């Protein structure tokens, strides 16, 4: 190796360590005890609001039949869209029905829904028109259609 190559090598290595200063600062700024933890959801470290909704949906799906027809409701339409997108994956064999899409209400409420996953930061309602509450979970409630749902189209 020539002296010039040796100099270049040292510069590149110095630059590598200069890059590492940035994550070092970020890790040291994290609160003590919160640097390394085992997350409960895939979103714990990036979006705590979505992580709460994920936790609700993950718990709710355990109370639903595998191939049910469901929708997600929330007083906040943005949360409702988030929940709808995530629930499609969390309930992979079920039939999702949107009540809204990108914060625009569906033209018609889905008629054949069997279950409503109601996500709310506050207290969920005691009932919904045509549905009865069957379970209350942290972050929301599960509602089941009171009468038999019409068959899926």
């Amino acid at each position, binding site marked *: 190796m020539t002296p010039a190559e040796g100099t270049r*090598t040292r510069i590149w*290595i110095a*630059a590598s360590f200069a*890059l590492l200063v940035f994550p070092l600062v970020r890790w040291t700024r994290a609160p003590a005890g919160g640097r*390394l933890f085992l997350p409960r959801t895939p979103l714990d470290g990036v979006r705590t609001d979505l992580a709460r909704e994920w936790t609700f949906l993950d718990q709710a799906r355990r109370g639903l039949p595998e191939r049910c027809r469901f929708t997600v409701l929330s007083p906040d339409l943005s949360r409702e869209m988030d929940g709808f997108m995530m629930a499609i994956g969390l309930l992979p064999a079920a039939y999702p029905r949107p009540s809204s899409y990108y914060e625009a209400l569906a033209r018609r409420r889905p008629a054949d829904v069997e279950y409503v996953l109601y996500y709310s930061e506050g207290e969920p309602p005691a009932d919904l028109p045509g549905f009865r509450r069957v379970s209350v979970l942290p972050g929301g409630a599960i509602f089941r259609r009171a009468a038999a749902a019409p068959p899926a189209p």
Partner: protein
Amino acid sequence: MRAVLFFAGGHLLLLPLGAWLAFHPSLRRESLGVRVSAALAAGAVGLTAEAMALTALGIRWTPVLLCAPLVVLSTGLAWRWSGPGAASDGPRAHPTPRGAAFALASAASLLALAHLGASLVTERATSVDYVYFWGVKAARFAAARSIDPVLLGWEYFFHAVPSYPPLVPVVEALPAMLAGGMAWKTGPLAALVWFLGSLPVVWATLRRRLPGDGAAAVAGFWTSALALSLVWSFSGGNGEAPILFFLTVAGAALLCERPSAPGEASRALAAVALAGAALTKVEGLVGALFLVAGVALRDRLAGRPRAFTRGVALAAAPVAGVLLWFGFQRAVGLPVGYAGHGFFFDLHFENVGKILTAALENLSAGTVGLSWIFPAAMLLLARSRRDALPALALVAGTFAFLFFDYLHDAGDPSLRIGWTLPRVSQPALSLWILAAGMVGFEQRR
């Protein structure tokens, strides 16, 4: 248990599916690491092609049905290519370095990898798109045992970008079938696997062009910059790490070719990796085609015979990949092609200033731009940049494509640039660093 099955099944299983490439005569003298990377690339591409074929034929997947044909093919080709004298002479690498420079560069790389690993494990680098659609597609494909055309054609699945090619969801659907469902918290760790998969190829190609310590130093910078960028851009669980893998593997293999020594390196690995990029996202196809254009231009300027023809032959791989996807779309009744952002020539030039400002703000790569600026300085100092043309073409082409894409936004595109640019610029960053390392050292020799 599900998490272990999911993680192991997801990527280790790709190795026997793509082992044929590891036994290709051009790769048999490569290191074990390079051959594992080759098998990973070929396994992912082969699995995706087979998954599309089975779905188009109306055959529901099972793990055995997905794996068995590829294992048989791999075994047959490996058997054929493993005979005596089948290996071609590979290019010679510089001796493995052992000194302080190598130790320091390795330490920097390991620290960066620890940062990436810890960030992925603690879900600090998860892409929100993973729970919105990348993982969702995988879960639904596994449940439907197909690339579910009904789901992709559903008007309320528009948010999931149904026109994206299916490599990532297919690769994740296989372990989901094996494990009985998605292991959601484990999924983002795939980014680490893809990243580790590209390291042996980067290391091998740098050692071929640079003195040992120099190769270690450039590899250390590359590893640090890209590991930090993957965390900064929240690339856990989405398609960015696979695209970075495919374009880095292809780019490194093509950059290390010496036009003055034709036949030094086979293009088999690069071709498979380019097909993988095209089967992952539209940006993968764009990057692949610009990379190939840069290779043809470099070879032409160097007076290499049949530069254009060899370029066309190389471009055939990503074009075949994307035609396979379009053919699948047509066969199952989906709209053919990619979904664009508005009409093709409905451009909003009044946003040029906003686009350039937002682009500069979002190219920090988690290092206030040092990851870009330092290699830029090395490139400027190089006496000749001709050998870097493939990488420079990919960088220029990627940014031109993104600029054109952002021009379609009628409103302020700054927010979308903030969401997308940090992650879609990563293959360009990768080749920018590799090119700077290669030409920056060589002019001093």
